[in-house]
């Protein structure tokens, strides 16, 4: 561009020079203007022709420019004027003419229109077509998704696809459509209709119904009035309740609550008089409430209010009191409802006083709830007392303990009244002084004399029954229990000690049996011994600590086989045994013992087991090469270090199944024959064998009912022989088939589709 401009400017300067030169050479005169003009032009022409002969300037003269000082008829040049020549300027007439406007407009339009882009490549067009076609067909196909899903999930598919059988028309509907055909039927139905008799339903006739329904006018009125009244009352009551609920006065509520509590107590007393069983239930409820209280955090000085008070308590006496009150309340609420079986502790006291609640009542309670056997353990023992006392001698030292205990309690217990029964036994036992100070106060608050009265008659009833048993049995009971507790210990020390007397006894019995042939039931010793055995077994089997396992196994096994099991007593004793006398049997036992003295069965068995365990253990691999890296020869062993280095420890296998069963050897070998029949590959969707195992839990017809088996073995696909199975159609599954969206059409003649689709697509594209 620059070069061009430079050339132009150069050219222009040349011309100007020429133009400048001209007037100098030829001064213009006006007079000779016309004549001169001609001449001048000619001259000019000549000059030009001459200069055109010059090779350089020839071209320049051919350029046309306009509106320049030099105007030539041959060319238009814009020289001189600053702007470019525009076509419209040329067209612009001097006067505006309408005919040219159209041309101008056309010109404008042509100017505004952009150039048409290049058409796309063929491949690209095809790709677009394909995409659209895919979308379309997938849309069509997606319609079938639910059908496919349903078929996949169906338990059974029946081909050829038939429409689902319309449900069997129930007989009522068949009957409804039925009309009396024969004249006889018509006659009958006429009669029935005439008399308004039920046609199908042999129930009441309308007349009967009406008579049943009927109600006299007075009755109706009365009933209405009643209903009205009830409704009004209800609304009043509701309104009142709402009002009361809105009262904010704390005092009022407190009073209300107190009143309620009083009422409840009164009710309870009444109930006790009338129905002790129900009263006990009430007690139980109280107990439950207590439990709830114990569970909750209420009244524990842990609330927001309590915390705020705690801060204040240091300075504020009232706050302190409030807190204490709350604590006291908590204590009160969580007091145990001890239904008079604080006999254990309050024994001494009970000996002086009469039992507050007769035992009969307590027993009823046990039967009623039977909640926690631990709570009422002594009851069962109580029941057995009569039996127990004869058999068990009372040891002295527990008695002493007991009495000391009771003495301590006495001071407290004196004040105890009815509500003592509701108190927690535990709190009594762990007698901290504070508790003792606090509790009686609470107890005194609740009124005692009345309740004493309440129970007095009940007590009177059972007094006769219970007093003897209680006074004699209580001591015995406690002693019995302590004895029982001690017995196991003693037994562990000397197992034979216990066994011997028992055994002797049974032998005595045997004697008796032999003579009299009658059965004597002495339950107790047997059960006691059994219980002991059980305990022992339990402790041996379960509670065995791990570190002594090996040692205990041996002991255990010994125990297992040597423990004396109670001998049977039966009506008919074998004749041979009958002949046997006591001493004789002892002799026999001796003989047996001697006979088996040599072969220690247990030791043999343990040895066998040890061998089996050893054999089943994986072996270590010793890779030591003697003589390598050190001296070798007879009598020389590779060093321990080396052996240690080249010993490959076998991995420890899973623990044996009989590890904790001393009297059992379980073979750990695999049954390969049976394993050949087991499933060895997991089928596809399962990832874990347990999952698969769960699906094969209902095998065969042997363990299932016939119907269940048939259902289980139902074939997945059923075809009817001799029927053509046609592909599924839209009509089959309830779709309306439209020619456009039906895929079957598409599949049938893809060519047509392509042509049509192309057209369609083209349309789409153009639009």
């Amino acid at each position: 561009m620059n070069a061009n401009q430079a050339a132009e400017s150069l050219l222009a300067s040349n011309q100007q020079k020429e133009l400048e030169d001209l007037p100098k050479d030829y001064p213009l005169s006006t007079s000779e203007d016309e004549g001169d003009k001609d001449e001048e032009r000619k001259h000019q022409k000549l000059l030009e022709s001459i200069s055109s002969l010059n090779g350089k300037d020839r071209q320049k003269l051919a350029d046309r420019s306009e509106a320049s000082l030099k105007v030539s008829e041959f060319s238009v040049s814009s020289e001189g004027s600053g702007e470019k020549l525009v076509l419209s300027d040329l067209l612009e007439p001097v006067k505006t003419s309408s005919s040219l406007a159209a041309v101008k407009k056309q010109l404008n339009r042509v100017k505004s229109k952009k150039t048409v882009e290049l058409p796309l490549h063929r491949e690209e067009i095809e790709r677009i077509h394909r995409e659209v076609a895919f979308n379309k067909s997938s849309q069509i196909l997606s319609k079938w998704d639910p059908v496919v899903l349903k078929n996949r999930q169906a338990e059974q598919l029946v081909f050829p696809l038939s429409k689902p059988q319309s449900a069997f028309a129930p007989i009522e509907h068949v009957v409804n459509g039925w009309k009396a055909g024969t004249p006889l039927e018509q006659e009958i139905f006429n009669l029935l209709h005439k008399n308004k008799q039920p046609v199908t339903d042999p129930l009441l006739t309308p007349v009967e119904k009406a008579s049943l329904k009927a109600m006299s006018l007075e009755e109706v009125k009365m009933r209405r009035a009643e209903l009205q009244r009830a409704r009004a009352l209800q609304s009043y009551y509701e309104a009142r309740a709402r009002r009361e609920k809105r009262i904010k006065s704390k005092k009022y509520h407190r009073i209300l609550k107190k009143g309620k509590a009083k009422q409840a107590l009164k009710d309870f007393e009444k109930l006790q008089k009338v129905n002790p069983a129900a009263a006990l239930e009430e007690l139980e409820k109280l107990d439950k409430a207590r439990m709830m209280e114990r569970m909750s955090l209420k009244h524990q000085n842990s609330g927001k209010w309590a915390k705020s008070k705690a801060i204040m308590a240091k300075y504020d006496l009232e706050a302190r009191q409030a807190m204490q009150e709350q604590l006291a309340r908590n204590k009160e609420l969580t007091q145990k409802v001890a239904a008079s079986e604080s006999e254990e502790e309050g024994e001494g006291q009970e000996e002086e006083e009469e039992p507050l609640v007769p035992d009969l009542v307590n027993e009823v309670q046990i039967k009623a709830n039977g909640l926690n056997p631990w709570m009422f353990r002594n009851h069962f023992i109580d029941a057995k007392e009569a039996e127990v006392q004869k058999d068990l001698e009372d040891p002295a030292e527990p008695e002493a303990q007991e009495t000391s205990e009771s003495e301590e309690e006495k001071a407290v217990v004196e004040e105890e009244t009815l509500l003592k029964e509701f108190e927690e036994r535990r709190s009594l036992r762990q007698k901290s002084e504070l508790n003792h100070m606090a509790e009686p106060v609470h107890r005194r608050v609740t009124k005692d004399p009345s309740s004493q009265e309440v129970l007095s008659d009940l007590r009177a009833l059972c007094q006769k029954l219970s007093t003897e048993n209680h006074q004699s049995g209580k001591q015995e009971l406690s002693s019995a229990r302590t004895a029982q507790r001690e017995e196991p210990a003693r037994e562990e020390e000397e197992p034979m000690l216990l066994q011997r007397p028992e055994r002797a006894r049974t032998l005595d019995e045997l004697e008796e049996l032999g003579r009299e042939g009658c059965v004597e039931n002495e339950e107790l010793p047997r059960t006691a011994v059994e219980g002991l055995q059980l305990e022992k077994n339990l402790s041996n089997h379960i509670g065995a600590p791990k570190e002594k396992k090996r040692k205990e196994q041996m002991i255990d096994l010994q125990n297992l086989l040597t423990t004396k099991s109670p001998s049977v007593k039966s009506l008919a004793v074998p004749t041979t045994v009958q002949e046997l006398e006591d001493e004789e049997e002892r002799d026999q036992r001796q003989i047996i013992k001697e006979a088996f003295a040599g072969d220690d069965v247990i030791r043999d068995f343990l040895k066998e087991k040890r061998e089996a365990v050893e054999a089943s253990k994986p072996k270590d691999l010793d890779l030591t090469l003697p003589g390598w890296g050190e001296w070798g020869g007879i009598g020389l062993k590779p060093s321990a270090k080396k052996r240690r280095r080249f010993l490959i420890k076998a991995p420890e296998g899973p623990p044996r199944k009989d590890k904790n069963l001393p009297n059992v050897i379980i073979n750990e070998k695999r049954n390969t024959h049976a394993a050949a029949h087991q499933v060895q590959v997991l089928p596809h969707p399962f990832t874990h064998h347990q999952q698969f195992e769960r699906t094969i839990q209902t095998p065969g017809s042997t363990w299932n009912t016939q119907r269940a088996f048939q259902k289980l073995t139902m074939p997945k696909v059923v075809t009817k022989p001799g029927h053509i199975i046609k592909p599924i159609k839209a009509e089959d599954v309830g779709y309306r088939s439209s020619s456009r969206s039906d895929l079957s059409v598409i599949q049938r003649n893809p060519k047509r589709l392509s042509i049509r689709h192309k057209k369609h697509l083209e349309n789409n594209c153009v639009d």
Partner: protein
Amino acid sequence: METVPEPGSNVPPKKDRLQTKKKKPRRYWEQETTGTAAGASPGPPRKRKRNRELRPQKPKKNDTSKKFRMSKKPRELKSPRPQRSLSGAQDPFAGPAPVSVEVVQKYCRIDKSKELPHPKTKTRSRLVVAEAQEEETSVRAARSELLLTEEPGFLEGEDGEDTAKIRQADIVEAVDIASAAKHFDLNLRQFGPYRLNYSRTGRHLAFGGRRGHVAALDWVTKKLTCEINVMEAVRDIRFLHSEALLAVAQNRWLHIYDNQGIELHCVRRCDRVTRLEFLPFHFLLATASETGFLTYLDVSVGKIVAALNARAGRLSVMTQNPYNAVIHLGHSNGTVSLWSPAMKEPLVKILCHRGGVRAVAVDSTGMHMATSGLDHQLKVFDLRGTFQPLSARTLPQGAGHLAFSQRGLLAAGMGDVVNIWAGQGKASPPSLEQPYLTHRLSGHVHGLQFCPYEDVLGVGHSGGITSMLVPGAAEPNFDGLESNPYRSRKQRQEWEVKALLEKVPAELICLDPRALAEVDVISLEQAKKERAERLVRSGAPRAWVPLPTTSHPHCILRSTAPCLRGCCSFHLPPLPQGYDPDARTPFQPKPKQKGRSSTASLVKRKRKVMDQEHRVSGHRGRAGHPKGNALLLAPLASSTCHFSPVSPYPGQNPPEPGAAAAEAREGQAHGGPAVGPGQIRALSQAPGPRRNILSPRPPVGNYPSLE
């Protein structure tokens, strides 16, 4: 009176609705029901189906609170049917019959409490289907309990009265004539103590005296089928699968007779047999011999399946466990050993007594075993895995013979007295506190067996045979297709064919027959491992660095091949595994985007992730089953045993135990063909009385026609 809304009427039948649209002719009961509730007919209102009054659809809820209506299927089947019948009367027991939950629970085989490893969606759907099927089948089975019409009898003493005092004569006096006829004595003093055996149907009785007297009879009608004298000592006698064949253990060999008394076979390979047992589902005759061999003879093909040496001297105590067809042998050293023909060694050996074992019996549920020994003890053992004594009792003179009845009564013969103990229910062990019944015989007991499906105990003794009445001993309901006491000859033959077709292979006898329904995990794991070894990961093959043999002198392998044992650190160990497509890729921490990502931090991160996984898996394992940890650890140990504790390859990272742990935890495998029907069949052929293994098959059809 209020209308009783029907259950299920909230699903109005479609047809109904259509008809109401068509303006059905109005019925007189319709207007009434729309009127007042009082005095309306019991029929349900049709037009006001959506009425709120009818919504409470569970009027019977309170009385069927314990029961529930299971099985959605039957209800679905019924739903299109309208609730009203033609007469307008209402079905008082609409819907499917209620099934009690406990009964259904009894037939339930899937333990839903057991947690499964988290399944994929596809698997889950399969599991759901399986569970639904199982529930349906158990409901069906529970329903079919309706067909078990008979109830067991029992003897109950008046308050405080001991049932053991009740004599046979009293019982016979009290019962009906037909039952009284079942008590009888056969006085056969001539041919010594008798052994006896009832056929499986309980209809036939065979007995053999020590001095060669063998007889078989239909003991109900007392019709003698055969009577012979084999002129040889008879040790034991046993019916084979039907009453037509009779195996007799004679002094020398084992002989088989038919019901005419014709000798069919003399099996000389079974010599000096002392005891016989027949396993009905396997067609196996188990013989215990004086020579100490336990021999299994397949009577359907006449082949000896297995001859096992018990290595415990003379065998004279044998019984079978009817639940799993395992043979129990009692030995003189106080042990009882359990045998299966598939194993050469005893499956379990239990030390039961100090002295020798005199008698063993196993109850029909296979849960309890009673043993008596020379130490005069009678013990009841728990056979469900622990093999511990549940109760024990010293008898004045130890029991020489024991027998369990179908309902779990235990009979013991002591000298000339038979004591019977009863438990609480069917599957409970007999309590040895108090005998239920006692009976004195005219001679010493030599054989005891409860008759199946009859409340009868047969006792063979030195004075002959006694059949005594024991109320509540036998199963009151029999399966007409399985063992029908009233079957005809034709039926017997048909049953025989069927039974032969369903014969269970002998090798399937194992302690837990349900184990056959489990996947063989060991071979599964093995196959998985092999597959992994076959598929070597294509990328990054590890080059072996064969070192000159001289440089690793300690290795026992003197070749350039890698040392597979990892015994010497000079070799590179092999790749621990090939390529396991199922295995989870081990965690690989991403390198840091910025800054230096030091190796230490990478290792640290790896360690952290590994620890976390380990913790999670350990927890899961503990939650799942007690062996979870052991399972986890075992493969770990095995995988690490390839490597010496010091990293043998200096240039490479040590193998990640985390990866191994992950693999061990996964323990999964894909693919493979589906299970063929043969597997299922194998399971269905599990031994034992089928009624007791999984669930009783209810008697279907074929009711006995009382003759």
